[in-house]
């Protein structure tokens, strides 16, 4: 799965959670909680969807690495890579 694929999936799932948000306008470096007003339940729903689609289970301790769109994509890419080599 390429970085582009991962970004596309993340954006789709963000779109499911916040359908009223124009995802194209999100700054990849902005805190998603501020940028699109998602709360802890939205976040948990997002992680559940990503787990289902990408197969990566994000532990609570890693949550701080996923606060921005670019951070989230980079994290998932790294986890996928290490899962493949393991």
């Amino acid at each position, binding site marked *: 799965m390429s970085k582009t694929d991962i970004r596309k999936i993340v954006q789709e799932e963000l779109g499911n959670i916040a359908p009223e948000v124009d995802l194209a306008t999100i700054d990849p470096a902005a805190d998603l909680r501020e940028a699109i007003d998602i709360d802890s339940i*939205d976040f*948990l729903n997002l992680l*559940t969807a990503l787990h289902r689609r990408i197969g990566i289970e994000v532990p*609570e301790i890693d949550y701080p690495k996923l606060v921005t769109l670019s951070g989230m994509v980079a994290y998932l890419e790294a986890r996928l890579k290490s899962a493949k080599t393991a």
Partner: protein
Amino acid sequence: MAEFRMPSLGADMEAGRLVEWLVKPGDWVKRGDIIAVVETQKGAIEIEVYQTGQIARFLVDLHSEVPVGTPLALISTEAEANAPAAVAPPSAPAMSPPPGAKQPVGVAMPPPAPLAVPRPPQAAPGLATHIMASPAARRLAEQHGIDLSAIVGSGPCSAITYADVERQLGPASPPTEKRRALWLDPAAMRAAIAAAMARSKREIPHYYLEHQIDVTPCERWLAERNATLPPDSRLLIGALALKAVALAICRHPAFNGFYRDNRFDASQAVHIGVAIAIRGGGLAAPALHDTDRLSLDVLMSGMRDLVQRTRAGRIRSSEMSDPTITVSSLGERGVDALYGIIYPPQVALVGFGKVVTRPWVVDGAIGPRSVVTMTLAGDHRVTDGHAGALFLAEIGKLLQEPETL
């Protein structure tokens, strides 16, 4: 024959617009099925049916706005539907409701009596002509050049309905299901909030209490529990808060119920209204039914489902109509405390501020702890500060032992 009626979805609702049927005549339905969508100020609400049976016919056309209590459809009971000569009972114009009679507002919709005689329709504009037909039926007939006098109406007082004209047109293509608007109308929602809150401030003598508690035990317990679980099984502290309030209500029933007609009726059931912020502005507080009887896992998945559906504009009728108390949590990006306004006819609102790290004395030593400020907005017509203090303290005590919730 039972009636399926326009439900009351809150104290401030007088009428609703039927925008979608999710069933068609002849379909079997059971109690709890979602069969229609009604548009209210609070957005599109999915309406559940309260009896099991077969949809006999529709009484109201799509997109018509009708008062609360208006019959929308007739449902044959199982016995009626299976009887070979099942015929709809004739409408009985003499059985009109007393003038001015209104459905009680803000209550769970009572299941209609199984053998209720259909009520005559509320006079709808456009019906008062020689041939009784609904506006939608007239339009459809016009479009297809159909003579209305050739049609026998199945609607109230033999009025011709949209479905009657459709039948006349012959085997029609199945109605195309339009995709519902995904989000709510912010202006209408603002108006609904304004009406409910203005009424609350006019009628309810609020008193406020606040109480700070150490939630470190909750955080530790959650971190340990969630560490080994996939995201969809994890709990949030908000679920613990809801359960603690629900359990505390069992000992403090005077905060759970409705104030109506100058008296308080305690509710046996605990249906906590969960205040949910709508992105971009707005608020809804649909009920999580029987909160006190749900295990934490079931409560959590119920809460997630409720939040997701509310934000997508898909609340169910029973969730809108019957919360018995409201809980509002500001979440991690909020402030220390919130002082809520009670949602009438309820009599209490419990608020939770965000979790903050504060110096705290434990066993005689100061250390950093996770602290939450809880608040209670109480209705002074029903309870006093002393009772409120005991209620809040009980919630705090329950949160010290999260494993017992």
